[in-house]
């Protein structure tokens, strides 16, 4: 250990860590308080202890988060976390804040922050359940605070010791500059995606603690109504978070798609499927009774899956590299501090094994009501199948994501299934799902009159066939366009590697069928949704969400199957190159750095390649107004900070949106400058010693070489222009000892005397100096002797992608509407404990609504069921 210098510096971590510590302490007080309430409900002091304990625990956590934000915002590089996750170039206030959750500690803190905040709502709304749910709820906050206490984001960088200062007197402490924020995170979507998705994760705690309370107190009915709004909130926020992540990946990462089946994506997808299944199970239990066991299980499952996913992605088990040392995911995984990892494992074991054990112990005590699927044609059965499919999809994804883990345990070489695996399995599930989505609006609970059902189904089914007919032609034409850009040397187009279905005709059939079914699903639900909106707007949420899901399925299948990509080269000054009828021509390189170092720019994120695109139908309007520009980027991140081996080359695509498709323009490689008189791959122009060459209007002569072994080598050139002015240039290569290999940096490149009218100086850059012959190889760029830019592009045509986004937005809005409705229901319910009362008058079918039988289109069997208490629901909306 280095001897501490000014001891006071070591105390900087104290305020933050103290806050986390106090949060843990208050967690214990909360648990003690509520246990007291459970033993004696009349004990007001204990209740106050519990409540104030929670308020303390949450506020201390929120305070710690706020403190971390302020350190991040103020670029306080004394703190290691701040130093590693931001930099002085992050000036936009929102990015300065968003850097807080760009690292592992920060994302745990974000999870804890939302958990703490949602806890206030839970505490206020839990009614008599408060003492049952809060002790479990607060424990999550406590665990997170404990993890962050160990893996503290408030760790400071120790001041340099005297020895270090002696070795390197230039050290400034605290550091004036940080490591910088990963540029892919410097994006609008990335700043709101983590807060949204972590809100969703945090909200999963609520169904979990209610399910635990239901199990402990053997109360399997009354938690349902209370937990519904939270489950819907989780579904909506996780769905929205997944969508934002997908959009970010599409827009920024250059992954060419919105979903890559990456472990990190999967880890947030399977909890969503579980909570979606829970929502459907709760609907069944609330309207029909039954599914009590399933729902308790699903309530536990969604949170446990999230914990499991967190463990997978955060603990570093997936960070292990495969047999070949290749990282398995594009997401950066970091290994956790070992004590913190242990706390995480304890947390996981506590919740996962605790809840599974409790569930198994109570399994027999949960009443089973045989209500599900009495006949084949019933909404009960449809929901049962829906839940089943969600769980099957969930299981497949969990299986795929954990494959590397099992292989590791089996001592097999690590490997994980690629996107093709998931696509193949999801395809039949998507077909079944859209079929079910399409018919469920026309199904009644319990039993459906099949004649009325078929009659109601007729219109959407018929319209679906018309749409399918249209799709047959559309697909035909799309397939033809696909053939046009077919590249027989591109394995992704020829081999079975990433194609879904090997046979073109099977593929065509599948696309037509699935898109038509997606349309059918959206249409059926829109038809019923429209009627419900008019009768009872609040109750339409579910149907609206289903419309969104139908559109989503339709959009995904079409855009994923018929997106088409071409790779092309655009030359400066050349003819515009054609991509799907769009003529793409070079306009200019933007950004100051291109001016300073025109041929070898220090690409930064503000430099773009501006290309002018003429759309296919622009010829009718010859004034040129129909053209537009696209500005894809290619830049080097961390250039000023990191060693060359740590450079990160980033590609930022440009997306130009049209109503029915996107034009996705991305640089296939870095822009290349081709010097005059050189071929694209040539190394440069070679001069023998004393050689003279006529280059355009100039005579260029290589006069002599100079240098110092191991330090630099240079070549002395003389240039004579048309005006007979003699200019000398001494380009050289500086040699340095890098970490891994020798670095060769060209220096003295520009010739300011020969600056062209655009302000770009002349260039003579030494590439190589043959040690034996002294021949010098150089790149030369002078006014009137200029090269041109070569821009390698990859252009993708994405049909119908807007339908995907539209579907997601509609689905999220529908889910939120459903949440509002369920929340209103809970509020109108007399205090939770007495909700066993038979009727809720509010939800009786109101007089102003039309006859439910006619509206719904199925005979609604008079409810002489075993459960008269459930008659309270408005049949219209159930």
């Amino acid at each position: 250990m280095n001897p501490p210098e000014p001891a006071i510096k070591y105390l900087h971590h104290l305020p933050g860590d103290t806050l986390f510590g106090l949060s843990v302490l208050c967690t214990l007080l909360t648990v003690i308080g509520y246990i007291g309430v459970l033993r004696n409900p009349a004990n007001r002091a204990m209740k106050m202890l519990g409540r104030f304990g929670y308020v303390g625990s949450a506020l201390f956590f929120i305070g710690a988060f706020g403190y971390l934000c302020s350190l991040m915002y103020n670029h306080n590089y004394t703190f290691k976390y701040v130093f590693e996750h931001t930099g002085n170039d992050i000036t936009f206030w929102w990015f300065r804040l968003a850097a807080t959750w760009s690292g592992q500690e920060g994302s745990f803190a974000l999870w804890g922050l939302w958990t703490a905040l949602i806890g206030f709502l839970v505490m206020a709304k839990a009614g008599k359940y408060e003492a049952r749910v809060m002790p479990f709820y607060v424990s999550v906050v406590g665990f997170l605070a404990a993890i962050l206490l160990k893996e503290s984001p408030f760790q400071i960088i120790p001041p340099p010791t005297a020895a270090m200062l002696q070795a390197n007197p230039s050290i400034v402490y605290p550091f004036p500059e940080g490591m910088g924020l990963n540029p892919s995170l410097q994006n609008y979507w990335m700043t709101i995606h983590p807060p949204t998705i972590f809100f969703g994760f945090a909200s999963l705690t609520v169904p979990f603690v209610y399910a635990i309370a239901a199990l402990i107190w053997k109360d399997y009915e009354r938690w349902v109504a209370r937990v519904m709004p939270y489950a819907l909130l989780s579904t909506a926020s996780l769905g929205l978070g997944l969508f934002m992540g997908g959009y970010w990946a599409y827009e920024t990462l250059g992954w060419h798609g919105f979903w890559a089946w990456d472990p990190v994506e999967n880890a947030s997808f399977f909890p969503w499927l579980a909570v979606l299944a829970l929502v459907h199970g709760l609907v069944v239990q609330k309207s029909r009774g039954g599914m009590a066991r399933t729902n308790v299980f699903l309530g536990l499952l969604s949170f446990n899956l999230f914990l499991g996913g967190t463990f997978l992605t955060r603990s570093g088990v997936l960070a292990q590299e495969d047999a070949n040392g290749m990282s398995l995911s594009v997401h950066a995984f970091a290994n956790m501090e070992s004590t913190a990892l242990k706390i995480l494992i304890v947390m996981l074991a506590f919740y996962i094994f605790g809840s599974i054990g409790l569930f198994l112990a109570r399994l027999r005590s949960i009443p089973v009501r045989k209500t599900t699927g009495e006949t084949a044609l019933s909404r009960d059965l449809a929901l049962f199948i829906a839940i089943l499919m969600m769980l099957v999809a969930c299981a497949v994804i969990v299986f795929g994501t954990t494959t590397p883990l099992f292989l590791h345990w089996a001592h097999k070489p690590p490997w994980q299934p690629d996107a093709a695996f998931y696509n193949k399995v999801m395809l039949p599930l998507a077909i079944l799902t859209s079929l079910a989505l399409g018919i469920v609006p026309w199904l009644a609970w319990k039993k459906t009159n099949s004649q009325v059902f078929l009659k109601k189904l007729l219109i959407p089914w018929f319209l679906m066939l018309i749409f399918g007919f249209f799709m047959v032609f559309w697909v035909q034409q799309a397939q033809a366009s696909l053939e046009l850009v077919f590249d027989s040397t591109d394995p992704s187009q020829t081999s079975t590697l990433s194609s879904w279905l090997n046979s073109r005709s099977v593929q065509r059939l599948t696309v037509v069928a699935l898109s038509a079914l997606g349309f059918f699903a959206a249409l059926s639900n829109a038809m019923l949704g429209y009627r419900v909106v008019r009768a009872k707007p609040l109750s339409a949420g579910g149907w609206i969400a289903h419309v969104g899901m139908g559109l989503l399925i339709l959009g995904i299948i079409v855009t994923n199957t018929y997106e088409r990509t071409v790779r092309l080269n655009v030359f400066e000054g050349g003819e515009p190159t054609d991509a799907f009828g769009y003529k793409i021509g070079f306009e200019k390189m933007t950004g100051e750095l291109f001016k300073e170092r025109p041929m070898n720019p220090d690409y930064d994120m503000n430099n773009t390649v501006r290309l002018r695109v003429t759309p296919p139908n622009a010829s009718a309007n010859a004034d040129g107004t129909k053209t537009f520009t696209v500005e894809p980027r290619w830049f080097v991140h961390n250039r000023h900070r990191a060693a060359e081996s740590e450079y990160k080359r980033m590609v930022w695509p440009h997306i130009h949106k049209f109503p029915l498709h996107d034009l996705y323009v991305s640089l296939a490689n870095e822009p290349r400058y081709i010097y005059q008189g050189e071929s694209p791959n040539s190394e440069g122009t070679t001069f023998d010693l004393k050689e003279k060459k006529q280059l355009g209007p100039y005579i260029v002569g290589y006069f002599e070489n100079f240098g110092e072994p191991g330090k630099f080598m240079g070549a002395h050139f003389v240039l004579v222009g048309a005006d007979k002015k003699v200019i000398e240039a001494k380009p050289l290569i500086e040699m340095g000892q890098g970490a891994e290999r020798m670095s060769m940096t060209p220096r003295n490149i520009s010739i300011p005397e020969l600056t062209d009218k655009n302000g770009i100086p002349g260039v003579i850059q030494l590439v190589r100096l043959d040690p034996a012959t002294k021949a010098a190889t150089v790149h030369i760029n002078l006014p009137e002797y200029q090269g041109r830019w070569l821009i390698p592009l990859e252009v993708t045509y994405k049909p119908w992608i807007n339908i995907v986004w539209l579907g997601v937005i509609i689905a999220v809005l529908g889910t939120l509407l459903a949440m509002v409705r369920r929340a209103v229901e809970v509020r109108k319910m007399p205090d939770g404990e007495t909700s066993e009362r038979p009727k809720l008058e509010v939800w009786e079918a109101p007089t102003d609504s039309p006859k439910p039988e006619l509206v719904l289109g199925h005979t609604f069997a008079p409810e002489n069921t075993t459960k008269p208490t459930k008659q309270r629901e408005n049949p219209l909306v159930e």
Partner: protein
Amino acid sequence: MKTAYIIAALVISIALGFTMWAFSSAMTPYVTITQARKIGTAVQVRGKIIRDATHVPQYDINEKALRFWIEDANKDRIEVIYKGAKPEAFDSAPETAARGVIRDAKLYSDSLVVKCPSKYESNESPYDKKATRKA
């Protein structure tokens, strides 16, 4: 209830079947270059990216693809033609695993996985980072 169970069994068995099939077909074997030359179908080859004076990884404007050579553990070499977005860490990656098919003695690849020499978050001391040196 019976209907429900029958349907459940059906759905689960179909899904299981599909999962098994998709899983087995998703496996692309890792092979040596010699083996890869014999197999006609998609393979995954791992090797060192050769970066010497005559084998500079380059974007080939005619192929519109990244061209480079890899060398496997048996010192076999093969040229890779990669059509796709250049991976972020390619320029600093010592090794890669390329997936693709072999045609005309070249590996036409659509997927490159590179080994990142340094993780974004590293455990090294801040004093070792360039930022502080520069400052």
